[in-house]
């Protein structure tokens, strides 16, 4: 049965389930309940099948490629190539999609008789199907079609909650940025087509040497911009903190957990597979982009007080970390150290998987908090742990995983990235290892700042006294939402526990790429998850660490709770506020928490502090009615990068407008003149 599954039929079955799911939910859109159940049930079914499909494919190493040629024989044959890399990404997509759909069953209830649930189910399934198509397509045109479907379906999901004006604006910004990105990708593929006159990835790969060197660099720049916009690297990241919060939570979990990974997938596919003999400066630029994105991403996350924007900025930071791994792998590849290149690629893939798991866990738990408290502003939360204890536990696990604290999965992928960067520092000559020193420095500081950011996030949402009335009557999220979050939390623990086995699996995935077939791996994994890098340079046992930490904490709990002073009385009393009785306005909130870090980095962040006093009557300046102090970090990018571009476009378009004189004859004469010029050129 497994053999049947991982073949062409299995793949078609997978896509058809999503198709049925989407059309069915559209069909049932009159009745919200059925539409919701139908759409999400098929999403769960499809993605669990996808998970089985990818795991069996990766384990049995049975990759296949087929093409479905349509009537235009050579031009548009839709060829698919499901190799190990595609299998891995299908696994990541379907793993997240299962639990997002579980979460959606309960979460979408609050959209009932407000919006059309059928449409939500339709676009949700289409989005997952297009993601799977993107990672499997091996024809540029087919890839672009799938890329368009993904962009459009995610656009409609972003503007789904259309009563809120900012969502529509965010959707609009997202659409523009996506299409700018697609334009660049199109340029890149056209350039490739010009020299290899084929759109099929395998053919491009075979005669890659036709492309002259400088053209390859232009292709690299275009694809960095094109896929960078989708992945959300720093200068092109404007749409991410706007679009992800606008979408419904389970969609923003899917988007930031998996959709931005398609950019990473295409980076790996292009730079490590298709345009293979790559120059070194490509790797250097990717590492620098990664370092800048991770550092600035976490800094901007610290300034945020909107929970979903904070998580969106953290996606940018983690993408930066993935790019660090990818960039170092490209540099090792250029220098011929293939085993190290495989190691850092494995680090990048492992962090992609981990980030998908804990980022969607964080988005889902944030979504269920927003669902209860009806606002995204963290200043109005506080004390939610007493009303939603399980969601708080899941958010705690997610935030410990994302700030790379040991027992969870985030630590092991960041540890692997660190090891690959250490290898870079040790093994390379000084003119290369300064890049690795810069990268390790940025990774170290990012780890510290991410920890600070998630203490701020968790503390201001869940701990201390409630700061608004909504929090008081918040109640625990429904069962299906907790199932979705619970399994993701379980996965983030399991991935941490069995990181040894996952590294072996990722090594097989890495070996799937043609450049790594005959490379011996520098990672050896023994029984209890001990894996050593480079003959004992560094080793870590994920399994026994986990058990040891739990045992020791349990030991200290038992010893101190029961052995010493067993009958100790515990008195519950007010918090000690030096005599004054503390109310909820006196506790620390996000802006207060992050203010010291923002002032330290004020060179980069350029915070602005405005204070404004309103008086009872304007003449006498002595009776202030209210004093407001706004501490804001203004968006450097839109001010210095995007506004000037906008101004240039406006000027240009006004100039061009002059030719529109309104006179028919003039227009026909334009056609006439151009016809003659063309004739002269052609003949």
């Amino acid at each position: 049965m497994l053999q049947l599954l991982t073949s062409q039929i299995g793949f078609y079955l997978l896509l058809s389930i999503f198709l049925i799911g989407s059309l069915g939910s559209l069909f049932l859109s009159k009745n919200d309940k059925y539409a919701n159940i139908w759409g999400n049930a098929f999403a769960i079914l499809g993605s669990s099948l996808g998970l089985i499909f990818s795991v069996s494919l990766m384990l049995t190493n049975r990759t296949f490629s087929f093409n479905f040629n349509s009537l235009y024989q050579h031009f548009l044959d839709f060829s698919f190539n499901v190799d190990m890399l595609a299998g891995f990404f299908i696994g990541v997509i379907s793993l997240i999609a299962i639990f997002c759909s579980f979460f959606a069953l309960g979460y979408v209830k609050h959209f009932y008789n407000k919006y059309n649930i059928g449409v939500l189910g339709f676009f949700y399934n289409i989005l997952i199907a297009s993601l799977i198509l993107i990672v499997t397509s091996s024809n540029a045109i087919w890839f672009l079609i799938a890329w368009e479907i993904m962009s459009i379906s995610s656009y409609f999901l972003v503007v789904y909650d259309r009563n809120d004006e900012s969502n529509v604006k965010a959707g609009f910004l997202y659409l523009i940025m996506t299409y700018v990105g697609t334009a660049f990708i199109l340029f890149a593929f056209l350039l490739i087509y010009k020299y290899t006159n084929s759109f099929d990835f395998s053919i491009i790969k075979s005669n890659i040497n036709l492309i002259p060197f400088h053209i390859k660099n232009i292709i690299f720049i275009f694809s960095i911009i094109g896929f960078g916009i989708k992945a959300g690297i720093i200068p092109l990241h404007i749409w991410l903190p706007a679009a992800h919060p606008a979408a419904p939570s389970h969609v923003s979990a899917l988007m930031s957990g998996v959709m931005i990974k398609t950019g990473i997938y295409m980076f790996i596919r292009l730079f490590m597979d298709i345009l293979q003999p790559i120059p070194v400066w490509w790797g250097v630029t990717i590492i620098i982009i990664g370092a800048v994105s991770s550092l600035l991403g976490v800094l901007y996350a610290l300034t945020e007080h909107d929970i979903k924007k904070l998580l969106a900025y953290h996606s940018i930071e983690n993408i930066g970390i993935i790019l660090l791994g990818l960039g170092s792998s490209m540099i090792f590849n250029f220098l011929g150290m293939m085993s190290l290149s495989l190691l850092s690629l494995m680090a990048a893939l492992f962090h992609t998987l981990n980030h998908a798991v804990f980022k969607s866990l964080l988005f889902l738990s944030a979504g269920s908090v927003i669902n209860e408290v009806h606002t995204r502003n963290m200043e109005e939360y506080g004390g939610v742990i007493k009303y939603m204890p399980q969601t708080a536990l899941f958010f705690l696990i997610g935030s410990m995983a994302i700030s790379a604290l040991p027992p969870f999965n985030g630590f092991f992928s960041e540890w692997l990235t660190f090891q690959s960067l250490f290898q870079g520092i040790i093994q390379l000559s000084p003119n290369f290892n300064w890049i690795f020193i810069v990268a390790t420095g940025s990774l170290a500081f990012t780890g510290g700042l991410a920890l600070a950011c998630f203490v701020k996030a968790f503390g201001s949402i869940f701990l201390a006294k409630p700061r608004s009335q909504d929090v008081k009557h918040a109640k625990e999220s429904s069962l299906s939402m907790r199932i979705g979050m619970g399994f993701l939390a379980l996965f983030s623990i399991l991935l941490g526990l069995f990181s040894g086995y996952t590294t072996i699996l990722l090594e097989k995935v890495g070996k799937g790429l043609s450049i790594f077939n005959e490379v011996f791996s520098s990672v050896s994994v023994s029984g209890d998850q001990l894996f050593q890098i480079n003959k004992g340079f560094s080793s870590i046992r994920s399994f026994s660490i986990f058990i040891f930490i739990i045992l020791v904490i349990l030991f200290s709990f038992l010893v101190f709770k029961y052995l010493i002073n067993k009958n100790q009385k515990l008195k519950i009393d007010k918090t000690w506020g030096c005599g004054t009785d503390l109310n909820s306005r006196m506790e620390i909130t996000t802006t207060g928490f992050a203010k010291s870090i923002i002032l330290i980095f004020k060179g980069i962040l350029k915070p602005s502090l405005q204070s404004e006093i309103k008086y009872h009557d304007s003449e006498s300046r002595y009776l202030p009615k209210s004093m407001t102090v706004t501490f804001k970090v203004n968006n450097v990018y839109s001010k210095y990068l995007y506004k000037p571009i906008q101004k240039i476009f406006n000027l240009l378009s006004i100039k061009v407008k002059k030719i529109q004189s309104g006179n028919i004859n003039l227009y026909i004469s334009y056609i006439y003149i151009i016809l003659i010029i063309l004739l002269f050129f052609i003949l």
Partner: protein
Amino acid sequence: MSILFLQFLLEIMFLTIIFLHLLKKNSDVVLAYIVQSILISLVLLNSFIETGDILILWVILCVLVVKVILGPIFFRRLIKKNALAFSVSTYLNSPLTLVLISFVTFMAFSNKLLPITNIIPSYHILLSLSLSMIFLSLFLIVNRKGALSQIIGVLSLENSIIMFIVFAGLEQSPGLQIGIIFDIFVWIIISTVFASMIYNKFGSLNVTEMNRLKD
């Protein structure tokens, strides 16, 4: 029919297009268009005689019925009803148009366009002449202000394309014939509707009024 006779017909048609540029009154313009259509049908008749293909007979019939009879009747009624006798002003005064006409014909005959005009080497002169006719009728549309003369310009463009095709030896292909027939009908309908609409919207057939549409 000898090449010379065909060439003679073509030259007459070339003259009609020149006249179209220079004429002032709408009715003369319609008259010139009738002459053109007759010439087209004659040439098609000649190719029918050579090839003996029934379809071309049908085409000739349609050309005769529509272009020679129906179209002009309709245009005359339009001219009478809306009394637009003298509205055939042009952008460029006549000497300048003549200079441009000569330049365009010279260009059509230049060897730069040899590949087009040399499809059938023997018909080289005829092909280059019809090519210049295509350019001239295009130039007619650009030059005229009145909507009616612009429509006539487009129709003459269409006729010169047919001439070009006939001399390029493509009249056999069925697709082309259907194309011509279809083209005739559709175009006639559009032009009439177009003219009447312009007229009752702007009160006159002078195209320059339309630049008020520009925002």
